[in-house]
């Protein structure tokens, strides 16, 4: 009896060891659903974008995403969730730049640019300078000239504080220290658009995705991009007008720092495939999301350059904590 049991036991033990050891190295990733952390509310712009991505993720990968919404405090709550998750490849999430940079520099966030492994950049939403269609201003230069003559008279609406819009305003102030605009902060893009429509402010800096919501009523004077934007092909960039400002908001996907190299490579490869899928490109255009793909390394390099630039801007403005 005892002897009889030894062999099966040995065999079972070997089998168990093999089972434990072998799949650990060769297991297919992913073999279970992946948590996708969204730091904003369901149905918001970030959610809509991620849902479009999911549609094409399902085309290439068997395991789906499970959406986890962690909204609050301008994204800090959700971004922290991603940074603090176990880097096993089963929690990834959407980040926004410059939000994460600003939050770590000025709002005592518990993460910084080093807390993430970057998968890809998927959206580059440049800031625009917009006025009402009925406005007397026909170009940004006219606003600048007017504000030089009448300091503080011209009112500019910004989403903020400590946002991409605010940074563009700081950059503008640095470039034109003698031009005084009165800035008014709004909680979100909808409030900012309403203020421009109601005439509470004379101009706004706003993202394309947001400005497009009321595009019938707005005249977009310039885009703060490196090149013209496909949504507004007739609008010149600020650089074309010899105003050297490039400012935008980027949507990025990332995992917590320390992801195994093979999993990170798989995610980066899959996101690349999604971003080059013609169906995805068409869906993004329909939803008003200015798609622009950057691979993980380029994204990381970009974020570090933003961090250096924003640190200097905030320091000059006395906003560095």
């Amino acid at each position: 009896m005892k002897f009889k049991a030894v062999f099966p036991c040995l065999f079972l033990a070997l089998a168990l060891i093999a089972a434990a050891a072998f799949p650990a190295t060769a297991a297919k990733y992913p073999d279970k659903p992946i948590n996708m952390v969204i730091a904003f509310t369901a149905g918001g712009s970030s959610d809509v974008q991620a849902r479009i991505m999911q549609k094409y993720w399902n085309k290439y990968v068997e395991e789906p995403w499970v959406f986890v919404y962690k909204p609050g405090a301008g994204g800090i709550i959700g971004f922290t969730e991603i940074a603090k998750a176990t880097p096993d490849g089963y929690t990834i999430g959407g980040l926004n730049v410059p939000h994460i940079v600003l939050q770590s520099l000025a709002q005592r966030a518990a993460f910084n640019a080093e807390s993430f492994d970057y998968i890809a950049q998927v959206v580059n939403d440049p800031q625009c300078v917009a006025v009402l269609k009925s406005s007397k201003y026909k170009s940004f230069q006219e606003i600048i000239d007017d504000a030089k003559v009448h300091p503080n008279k011209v009112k500019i609406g910004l989403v903020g504080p400590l946002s991409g819009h605010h940074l563009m305003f700081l950059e503008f102030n640095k470039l034109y220290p003698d031009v005084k605009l009165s800035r008014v902060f709004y909680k979100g893009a909808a409030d900012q658009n309403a203020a421009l429509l109601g005439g509470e402010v004379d101009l706004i800096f706003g993202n394309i995705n947001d400005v497009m919501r009321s595009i019938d009523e707005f005249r977009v004077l310039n885009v703060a991009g490196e090149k013209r934007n496909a949504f507004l092909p007739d609008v010149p960039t600020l650089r074309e007008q010899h105003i050297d400002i490039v400012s935008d908001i980027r949507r990025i996907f990332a995992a917590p720092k320390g992801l195994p190299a093979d999993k990170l490579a798989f995610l980066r490869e899959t996101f690349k495939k999604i971003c080059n899928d013609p169906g995805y490109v068409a869906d993004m255009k329909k939803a008003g999301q200015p798609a622009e793909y950057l691979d993980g390394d380029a994204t990381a390099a970009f974020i570090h350059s933003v961090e250096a630039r924003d640190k200097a801007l905030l320091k000059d403005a006395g906003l560095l904590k």
Partner: protein
Amino acid sequence: MGATAHPALKEPHMTEFIIPSLLNLIDPLNIALMVIGLAGGIIIGALPGLSATMGVALMVPATFAMDPSSGLVMLGAIYVGAIYGGSNSAVLICTPGTPSAVATTFDGWPLTQRGEADTALYTSLLSSAFGGIVGVFFLLFLAGALARFALQFGGPENFWLCLFGLSTIAVMSPGNMGKGIVSGAIGLLISTIGIDPNAGVPRFTFGSYSLIQGISVIPCMIGLFSFSQVLFLIGTDKTFVADYNPRPGTFKRTAAYLAGRCKKILLRSSLIGTWVGMLPGAGGEIASIIAYNESKRWAKNPSVYGTGCIEGVASSESANNAVIGGSLIPMLTLGIPGSAVAAVILGALMAHGIQPGFKIFSATGELAYTFIFSQFAVNLLMIPIGFVLCRCMAKLLTLRLTFVAIGIVVLSYIGAYAISNSLLDIWVVVVFGFVGFFGGKLGMDTGSMALGVILGPMIEENLGKCLDLAHSVPGGLPSIMLDSGISKVLVAALALSLATPYLLHLKKLRAQERSARCRCADERPENENA
């Protein structure tokens, strides 16, 4: 401002779209979506914590698989159902299912305690449908003009509007204004936790990372109203929540009472609801409270409010459903949502590639009018569907109190957690449950505290805008605050509102004098709360 020449606000060829839109509506799929959306919405709304915003947001991805008009019809039906559904739990267990239903508890719950839950439920059903239809009426006929008007509400106007809302504390707790003000002030203080909206730095977080997002309104209200209600219920020696003795013919009697005696109240509350709904930032939770207080202010006998009067339920419920039509006006015409739910629906529209704007009524007119007509249909369909569902929900009163109490606690936790998947929100529910319970024992007013928590962030945000704008005019802050005509009207309304308890007191005194004219008034009480 805004006097510059805008293109004429025409409703281009609305008639052309009527027939195809109505044909779209009688499509069996759309009818089914309306019925399912309504029923689902009512249930979501009735569950404390699962709010209208969440219900609609959860269904947005499902619309990606539908054609845009069916998707919109369904989202609209959920919105209407959920706002109405919130009143059911407000009436039955004194727990507003959605924040919009806070004011419904003031009179709905006393009615239930008196054993007249059926009257309260039917009142809220019929008033909701009435308010909803008034709101959609304005959406259909006056969207363009009203959207322009709503835009006149900038920082200063919204600041005064919020203060006006806050001043209702004075009317809410006339006998006990001191404690009402303290409760409201505590609420305001609580709302300052989190990131400062004007400087962007955290405050009062005591180093705790979770507090950085502040105390969310919904978990706080679940605590103040539902959880404290559980503590109150298990403290009583009753076996059931309240007696429930439905009498035949109540529905007809309620309908006749509303049509006969409450016409003015219903109409005024619906207009207030539509108007507040149009304003970006202000939603149903404020509209229903303002409407309730206006009804009380102008009533012949204000003292019956709060003791279970049909008028109170009718004004709160008609106002919060009228908000729906109002909030869709700036959303469709300008791309600016008038409420949190409208913002979610806007997101769904944009995801379908539909551009909001005045052109929506011509370029995608069939879709726009299908949606608007579906709102009429939904409000009418709500009467039979709501009737069936509210009778089922009233069965709750026949369950043993202990089961109901356990059920409320479970739902409160789920609802609070589901908002942002944060355990902190569950602690908020527990803490505010005790605050509400013991505060109530001390005579504190949970309604005032909730008002402070809701309005605090809006007051602060708009004050910040005023301070920013003050740099641009020579007169500084005072001239910004009082410059526009709307601001002046609101300041006058605010003054009137603050004087109301005094005026009501005078009215009562005069009545007393009339009844006992010969007796001298040497026991006239002092009044220092003018």
